[in-house]
């Protein structure tokens, strides 16, 4: 029944997280709050808000309201969702430390271990092939080091990292800006289903809540709050990832960023972060060392194929870069006939040394 009282308090509208936390610290448990008198409550959170507790609470229409809360609680519990509040023994310690800690949250699946290192990976919703590749690499290594990865399941870097973690056998937690039972964005449905079993899905919004623009900055504080380290990959000048990074710093957590070239709009935010003192990630292996995970056997994504290549193919390969290059540029750089160049690029692709990205650009794979 304890969960039920916690849920009752959690779903009172017009009551901020801070007030709920205040009530808990004043009364001890949610059950105490439930039985407390109006005066006592008013002394903690003020007259006006005390009304909110009482009007939506049990006192006005005890039976109806009670039944509704119980049936709601049962329905999400039977859907595999748990509700944790700040007083719960399994409420993460890390989250308690942050300002504006959520009073409670819904969870499908499981939370990362309390003891180990936890990393958050965030970044652009429209990454370049370079960002995608780095994200996959870092995620893969973190997974092999048994480090859980937290992210927002958004399009782009978020979902790419989380998928890479699961693919490498690791575990990942998604923090959503909508009800935990809603998959947003829709196109990551496959990842959402996998996370239920191979990780977790967390949200401070009640089940059934549709995503709202204003929810996302708020959920970012949970992403950074749950992690010890936040890694930013490809954040633009006004990226939402910068909000998360800022919150991580406020919360006293470490922030690392993957650098981009000067003037690259896709990495402007990251470069700014590094300029302002964030850790610079020189390579995935480098990050592992920074995180004292150097014992992790770093497995490159694809095997180095250099030695098996014919001279011409090797020459084209050396012209390729982690930044996507267009066919025109490659033609100028390699001085090859277009037919020859296309042939070699196809062979490199088949050999796994290159990849064709959107719009006929090519990047190097290592």
């Amino acid at each position: 029944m304890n969960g039920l009282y916690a849920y009752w308090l959690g779903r009172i509208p017009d009551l901020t997280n801070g007030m709920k936390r205040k009530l808990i610290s004043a009364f001890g448990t949610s059950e105490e709050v439930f039985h407390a008198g109006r005066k006592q409550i008013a002394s903690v959170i003020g007259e006006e808000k005390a009304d909110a507790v009482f009007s939506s609470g049990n006192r006005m229409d005890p039976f109806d309201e009670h039944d509704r809360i119980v049936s709601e609680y049962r329905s999400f519990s039977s859907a595999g969702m748990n509700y944790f509040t700040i007083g719960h023994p399994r409420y993460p310690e890390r989250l308690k430390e942050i300002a504006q800690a959520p009073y409670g949250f819904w969870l499908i699946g499981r939370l990362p271990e309390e003891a180990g290192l936890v990393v958050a990976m965030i970044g652009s919703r429209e990454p370049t092939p370079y960002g995608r590749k780095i994200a996959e690499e870092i995620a893969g290594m973190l997974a092999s080091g048994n480090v859980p990865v937290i992210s927002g399941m958004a399009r782009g870097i978020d979902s790419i990292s989380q998928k890479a973690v699961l693919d490498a056998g690791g575990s990942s937690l998604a923090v959503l800006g909508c009800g935990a039972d809603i998959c947003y964005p829709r196109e990551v449905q496959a990842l959402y289903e996998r996370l239920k079993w191979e990780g977790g899905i967390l949200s401070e919004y009640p089940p059934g809540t549709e995503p709202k623009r204003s929810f996302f900055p708020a959920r970012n504080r949970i992403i950074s709050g749950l992690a010890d380290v936040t890694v930013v990959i490809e954040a633009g000048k006004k990226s939402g990832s910068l909000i998360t990074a800022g919150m991580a710093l406020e919360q006293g957590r470490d922030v690392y960023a993957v650098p981009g070239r000067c003037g690259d709009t896709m990495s402007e935010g990251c470069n700014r972060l590094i300029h302002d003192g964030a850790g610079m990630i020189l390579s995935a292996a480098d990050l592992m060392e920074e995180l004292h995970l150097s014992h992790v056997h770093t497995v490159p994504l694809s095997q180095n194929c250099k030695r098996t290549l014919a001279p011409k193919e090797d020459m084209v390969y050396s012209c390729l870069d982690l930044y996507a290059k267009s066919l025109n540029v490659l033609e100028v750089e390699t001085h090859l006939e277009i037919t020859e160049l296309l042939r070699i690029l196809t062979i490199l692709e088949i050999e796994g040394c290159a990849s064709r990205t959107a719009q006929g650009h090519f990047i190097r794979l290592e």
Partner: protein
Amino acid sequence: MFASVLSAVVIGFHVCFVTVEADVSDGLPGLHMVGYLASEVKEAGERVRTALRNSGIRLPAKRMIINLAPADLRKQGSMFDLAIALALSAALGEIPLPSLSGVIILGETSLNGEICSVAGVLPMVQKAFAEGIRTCILPRQNVKEGKLVSGMTIVGVSSIGDVLEYLRTGRIPDNGSDGDETGRERKALPHPAEGPDFAEIHGQSSVKRAALIAAAGFHNLLLAGPPGSGKTMTARRLSTIMPPMTVKESMDLSCIYSISGLLRENEPLITVRPFRAPHHTVSGAALIGGGPFPKPGEVTLATSGVLFLDELTEYRRSVLELLRQPLEEHTVCISRTKGTFEYPADFLLVAAMNPCPCGYYPDRARCACSSGEISRYRSKISKPLLDRIDLCLETEPVCYEDMESTFSGRDGGRSAQDPDSGQMRQQAFHAWQIQQERFASMPYSHNGRIPTPDLPRWCRLDASCRRLMASAFGRLGLSARSCHRVLRVARTIADLAGSGCIREEHLAEALAYRIADLWRDS
């Protein structure tokens, strides 16, 4: 008295003979027309009556009946006027009856007795010749067109007076038409030297290469790229590097244009491959043909040439899907309550589109389209349509180095390395000759037209190619259908290189033009 003459009508793509019968008898005076006539044919009665009077033939106050047989065939068009006039004149005894046997008569009359040109002359004369008719009376403007059929005696007339004189005396009126075309066999047609040239496109060697392969093997081509990357310029030049049309192709195409009334009086034989670029607001009927009495659409008018769809994503989806049948079967079948009409539609499709709504993806400095917008934009093109496109190339904006010659004025603004249309046409022509020989006994004559069951016969892969294909299949995520497309393209690349068998380098290059990547989520 009774008289009958022969005329013809084009229904869809078929020529039907129409016998125009006239009878003059006693009874209530008047001119009556029967025979399932469209309104423009009914009006012919008034036109003909006036034209005859103005040509000196007085119509008596008798009962005159005109019948156009067969009576169950809907008659449409203005080409019966002259036949009606002559049948009536013969029935009135103005001209001797025997002079009209074995003659086919086409032409529209004006009130003063002049004869005006009509559409569809070429196929009608062709059919008449095939049926053993050796004389044809045509409007003067259509004489050159009629003379394309060698062996046919063409009588060009400019007024009813001319015709009457010819029929009375047997003297063919001289209308200044020179007889040089008559009966001359044309082996190959010259290619026009003027027109746009590939040398005007700077750099863009990959696009030019893809265009060459498309022209050489008759492969449909999709160009995706930002604005200003040469998509439209390439498409406009593609028909100029295709080898000259054969006489048969040229005749067939001229027939299509004749039916559509698009032939020019002085150049009755179309020798230049057509380039049709319907705007993206085109209706379904305009694209594939249609109307209550179907007329050829753009796909038919592009036969043997290029159909260019610029801004492919802007076309209505329902209109684009209509292209499936012509792309698959190379004919178009239009069914209406009045009948089913089949038109040829063997065209080379060139489609151009932007990579995203704003056009600049993946240049993120300029493009702010979200991945959702981009995939929505691309999903406007359906998979079945893409399945019918062999070559896909992503184009890029021109780089400055390639523009250099424009500014320096060197070589007349053309860069030395840029191949011109002449060279490319030569290459494509060689590849065509190889294909003509190879497919001599086949109903198709180009690599792009090899049906799937015949692929193993023409596109055999050796062991090393098979290894490459196997790893490509897994690594590049090919489907069975895309494998077939790659095989056809590889065959053309081998032909361009003059190689009898497909080698590894040909296959590897063909793989570079696969379509999958554009539609893979990015």
